[in-house]
């Protein structure tokens, strides 16, 4: 017997195995296709890039729970690594094979791609979410059950005037401390509660590092870690500008409003509130490691985990991995910010900044979905207060739905929705004022964050580059806005010809949005 099978040619054996594998694969695909196209079963697929522990597991649980409620519906999860997600997304959309629900985000997501491939949800969100029946959110519109009212810029597309996605999580930022190193340096474990105490911690850490001849960064920071902090520091010191200046009479100002006032000479970086913004940034930024803006996120996380930094600031999304990797006791607390009681940095401050931007777990409904009503229903199911709580419990994300339970492990990250907004967002990252941002941070950060040079030295260096950068940004903004106005002109002009009443409301909304943009553009051109 032994000898018999040895006589079988290996090539034939290989062919038989190949045929068997082919048969199995064909059977699986055929069965899946049968199930999908079977008249009795509806299959909904949703795709995302969140491979973090706990997220995929809870998505599977919720999918199963949905099927328990709706036995004729199968829900399949597709998890794609974030690095390849944008390319995968575009391929799926163009190829017509996209899942019913997809996380909307990443590079290359244009308005054309959104409008062509995704269904607007603005009408759907005005009705209550039936999965909130029996809860305090029962009568609320689906929109108002979200902590941001679906107004975050990731959720509501200002140019297309539509809600295109529903989000499940609110990323918030906190200070993470190496408590062991903290105790070594400070002699106690009372985390900094005020801005002054934070600066004291930074000074003591630098002194201790010199005295002990040990590497101990006050704050481990790359641009990923630093920009949200720098933005917050700058923003909080410009808050009172919203109520002190009439501006547009809206208790709201944009970076465009501020930059136009700089252009008009009504605001200056050498005077409050803008100089106050810079001094707050400088006070903390001088403790960042040299070259932090070019450092990689992973490098700085590594520095912290290796015990070479006493603190870092990052989002709730890093908690689980830091908890797993850090060999020391990890403490988390609010990032101490200037407040109205601060002896040196109180001017302009009204209070904590709001934390309401829904940015995680955003799902959009594809036009190619064969079961859009069911997919939308699944989205409602996912974002009910009960299921958002369940999702948060497993993923340790901060829930996006009002009243959803924040897990104990991330209580420190509970967002503050009632903070005072601020006008200055320039340092949140690259936006319409990319050139100004680059000039002020990338080109002259060594002076801004110097421990020895005064702010004046930085402002003198920036002065000659700032105005050309500002003009370049304003011209680019004007061009982009004109392009959007032209596009809307065509759309409303044609919708005007549509006989059906269904287009009348849409036409009015677009016209009103268009008028607002025309006024903004006219105001910009008034100053150019």
């Amino acid at each position: 017997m032994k000898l018999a099978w040895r006589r079988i040619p290996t090539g034939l054996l290989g062919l038989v195995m190949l045929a068997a594998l082919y048969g199995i694969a064909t059977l699986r695909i055929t069965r899946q296709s049968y199930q999908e196209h079977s008249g009795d079963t509806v299959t909904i697929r949703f795709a995302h890039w969140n491979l973090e522990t706990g997220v995929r597991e809870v998505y599977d649980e919720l999918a199963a729970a949905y099927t328990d409620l709706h036995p004729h519906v199968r829900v399949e999860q597709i998890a794609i690594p974030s690095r390849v997600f944008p390319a995968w997304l575009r391929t799926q959309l163009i190829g017509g094979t996209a899942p019913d629900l997809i996380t909307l985000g990443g590079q290359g997501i244009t308005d054309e791609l959104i409008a062509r491939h995704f269904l607007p949800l603005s009408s759907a969100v005005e009705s209550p979410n039936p999965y909130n029946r029996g809860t305090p959110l029962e009568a609320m519109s689906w929109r108002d059950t979200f902590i941001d009212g679906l107004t975050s810029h990731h959720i509501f597309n200002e140019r297309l005037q539509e809600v295109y996605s529903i989000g499940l999580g609110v990323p918030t930022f906190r200070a993470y401390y190496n408590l062991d190193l903290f105790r070594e340096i400070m002699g106690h474990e009372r985390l900094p509660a005020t801005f002054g105490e934070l600066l004291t911690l930074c000074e003591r850490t630098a002194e201790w590092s010199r005295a002990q001849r040990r590497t101990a960064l006050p704050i481990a920071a790359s641009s990923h870690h630093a920009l949200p902090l720098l933005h917050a520091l700058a923003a909080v010191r410009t808050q009172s500008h919203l109520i002190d200046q009439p501006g547009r009479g809206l208790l709201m100002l944009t970076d465009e409003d501020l930059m136009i006032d700089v252009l008009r000479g009504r605001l200056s970086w050498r005077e409050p509130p803008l100089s106050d913004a810079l001094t707050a940034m400088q006070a903390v930024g001088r403790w960042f490691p040299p070259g932090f803006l070019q450092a990689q996120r992973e490098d700085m996380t590594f520095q912290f985990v290796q015990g070479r930094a006493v603190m870092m600031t990052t989002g709730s999304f890093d908690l689980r991995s830091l908890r797993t990797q850090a060999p020391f006791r990890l403490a988390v607390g609010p990032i101490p910010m200037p407040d109205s009681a601060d002896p040196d940095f109180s001017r302009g401050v009204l209070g904590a900044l709001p934390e309401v931007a829904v940015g995680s777990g955003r799902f959009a409904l594809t036009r190619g979905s064969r079961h859009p009503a069911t997919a939308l229903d699944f989205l409602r199911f996912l974002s009910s207060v009960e299921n958002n709580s369940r999702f948060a419990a497993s993923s340790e994300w901060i829930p996006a739905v009002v009243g959803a339970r924040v897990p104990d492990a991330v209580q420190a990250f509970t967002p503050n929705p009632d903070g005072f907004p601020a006008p200055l967002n320039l340092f949140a990252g690259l936006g319409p004022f990319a050139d100004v941002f680059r000039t002020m941070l990338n080109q002259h950060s060594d002076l801004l964050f110097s421990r020895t040079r005064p702010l004046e030295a930085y402002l003198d260096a920036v002065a000659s580059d700032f105005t050309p950068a500002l003009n370049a940004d304003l011209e680019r903004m004007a061009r982009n806005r004109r392009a959007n106005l032209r596009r809307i002109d065509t759309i409303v002009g044609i919708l005007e010809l549509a006989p059906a009443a269904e287009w009348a409301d849409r036409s009015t909304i677009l016209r009103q949005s268009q008028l607002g943009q025309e006024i903004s553009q006219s105001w910009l051109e008034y100053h150019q």
Partner: protein
Amino acid sequence: MFSYDLPVAAKSLALITLLASSVAPALLSAHLSPDALEAVQQLRFNDAAAMVATEQNDEHRLAAALLLLSRQPRTRTNINSAQAALQDLAADPNTSPELRPWALYHLARILHWHLDHTPRAATLAAYQRLIDRYPIHPAAQLAQSRRLLLALFAPAAAEESKARLAQFEKEAPVLTTRDARYAYHYVFSEAYQRFSPEAPELAEHTRRALAIAPMTPTKRADLLIRLAESARARGDVPTARTSYEEFLQSYPRQVRRPLVKKRLEELSP
């Protein structure tokens, strides 16, 4: 075709049927197809252009001209072609009287936004031509707000900008459509806020724009706050309080709530 033996009613019915059968196809295809409208909504302008090219009635000709302005790639040739097509529509005596004003409106829009560096006077003149010729048509009514926008936001010294506000307040344009009334008052509200925020007309135009009920998600919130802020600045505490409170009641998730609450606290005796 007709037999003298048939009753008159039957002959009439036959004649009507004959006429209807020749007119019906034109009626049925007069409007843009739902597919074309969807394509436009999805920014698929090139696809929509191909769809509207199948018909040659006035509506399709107008749509084709508008699509020339946005189809890719955007070229000066396409803009020129759009202008020519709209001019033909405007000049053609057979063009539907409903659509001819729209052709003039979009010719003005081309000067306003689709061409760069158009002299302001030329655009103003184009809007004025439409208004003079068809003062009550919806297109002309929309043109009123655009003409106002161009005039009020023309670069000028502060005092001249203020004076223009007073000048245009004296006009009494025909405004019967909701869109046109909202646009007119909204432009005035924005202009007063920028050039003469202390003027009582700011509150009046803001109130009127609010009453017409803006439909964009944040626009009503903005106008409520502006009404409140202008009332507060004038010392009209009851109006300010009412508007702030209405904002808080209507917008449970608006990020400006803490600022509005702070304003209300300051207004409390």
